[in-house]
């Protein structure tokens, strides 16, 4: 029995390792490309002398505003996550614990679902026109608001799932202690929701950071985010592989940071929706 189990365990390890390599190698490839001269990339050379000329162009040249794009992405992600988390948590709490009439619950959750199912692009055209008419065309406000609403269904769903982990009895106990609704929420529910908030917040931040389609349509150069800046280097007329790779490498940093610091939180967030 033993040797067969060891083979099976070995096979499992091999399968996992193969899968892990399949995931990691492409990342290694693009990071390596960001240090190659353009000709080394286009000649597919595996051996090359490294250079930082692309990072230099990306960060310090006149035609590139990457540092600003980075700041834009960060700011938009932070603010939209805060807004989204607030609206989503409050909304989830109201829907679940504040006696919301059934028709309203179904309406809001149903609309959430329906909205989540439609591609962003269907609404972007309208957003573009509406924002432009009120003078907010291609502004930070437009970007923050659209990012918030795009992630709201997810926030609602996830926070709803985390909320259901908080026992109702605790709230009843608080009510017996004559706590008003605000105090119940802030002193009883919120502390228990903290890990859920962190998990959801981390995911929302990443989704906002990664967002491309809407940001492409609703920004101009000053308000452009990192993904939009990256796409700038990947044009059919003037493909700059080195700059594109360098931009991609730098775009990975927030995700890598979050991974190293908050793996468990992220996994909890992702699996929460599926398992509850």
């Amino acid at each position: 029995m033993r040797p067969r189990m060891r083979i099976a365990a070995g096979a499992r390890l091999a399968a996992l390792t193969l899968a892990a390599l399949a995931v990691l190698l492409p990342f290694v490839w693009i990071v390596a490309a960001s240090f190659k001269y353009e000709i080394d990339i286009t000649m597919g050379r595996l051996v090359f002398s490294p250079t930082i000329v692309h990072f230099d162009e990306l960060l310090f040249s006149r035609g590139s505003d990457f540092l600003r794009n980075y700041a834009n992405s960060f700011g938009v992600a932070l603010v939209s996550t805060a807004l989204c988390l607030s609206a989503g948590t409050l909304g989830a709490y109201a829907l679940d614990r504040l006696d919301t009439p059934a028709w309203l619950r179904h309406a809001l959750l149903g609309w959430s679902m329906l909205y989540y199912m439609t591609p962003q692009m269907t609404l972007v055209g309208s957003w573009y026109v509406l924002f432009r008419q009120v003078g907010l065309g291609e502004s930070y406000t437009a970007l923050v608001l659209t990012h918030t609403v795009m992630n709201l269904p997810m926030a609602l769903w996830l926070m709803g799932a985390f909320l259901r982990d908080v026992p109702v009895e605790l709230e009843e106990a608080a009510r017996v202690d004559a706590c008003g609704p605000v105090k119940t929420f802030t002193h009883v529910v919120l502390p228990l929701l903290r890990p859920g908030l962190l998990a959801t917040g981390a995911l929302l931040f990443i989704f906002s950071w990664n967002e491309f389609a809407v940001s492409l349509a609703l920004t101009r150069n000053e308000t452009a985010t990192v993904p939009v800046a990256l796409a700038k280097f990947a044009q059919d007329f003037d493909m700059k592989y080195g700059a594109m790779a360098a931009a991609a490498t730098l775009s990975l940093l927030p995700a890598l940071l979050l991974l190293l610091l908050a793996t468990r939180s992220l996994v909890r967030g992702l699996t929460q929706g599926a398992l509850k």
Partner: protein
Amino acid sequence: MARRWPSLRLWRAGSLAPLVLFYVLLTLLPVLNLAAMSVSDVSWAAGRSHWSFVGAEHLARVADDAVYRAGVRNTAWFAAVSVSIQMLLGFTLALLVSRTTRGSTLWRMVFLLPILMPGIVIGAIWKLMYDADFGVINQVLAWFGARARDWTGSPELAMASIIAVDVWHWTPFVFLLMLAGLQSLPPEVFEAARVDATPWWRELTRITLPLMLPTIVVTLVFRSIMAFKVFDEIYLLTSGGPGTATEVISFSIYRTFFVQGRAGYGAAVSLVTMMLIAMVVVLALNLQARLARRPA
């Protein structure tokens, strides 16, 4: 239910207000705006927009639009094939691995990576790898003596290449969800199966799959919804080409609005898309209700 707090209604209204406000202003209103735009021609001059009514002209043209029809077909095909492969691969890998607990955080970190990457970075990575002249895939093929292929430029391969990228992108996600699901299943059931010396395939079909069904369904629904929205990879890798081989709905709408500048027609296309999705939802709900009514 008796009112628990006298001011409950107020707090409820206040808590729901931000959510409702966002939804009404940024989703409901734009949909109405789309309806208005789809029957007009919108143009801009001196900072103001000018609208002129054109009736059902745009909507009629959507039905004739071969590119849009190709987009709908491609998106459906893409979603179906890509999600199926991911579910299969992810589930199989999770099954294989569910008993390995060593270094699980490290594996989780690795498999989380693609999900956290901007889609545009994934597009960039694969653009480099798929390149017909210097991409690593063709290079490796050359080592084995196989012919180099034009992955994103030939009509036969383009869609398959995009699907491959999506599979690479999201299988880890499916894997993680399936793994979490498997590890949360009650171990007693499997103990019993082992005691009875149940063959692995029977264990799989009679025990594992039925127990995992909720998780599988949720993952499937999630992934399908996301697959319908695909845009980033198409933008970077193929721009809908060659021909209309990788044309997808999101890209068609983007091109109509922002490259061709046709707001009225773009709105018509958007509305038609939303109606199509609504139809799919209604069908799915119907199906679900009918299945739920069936005796177990």
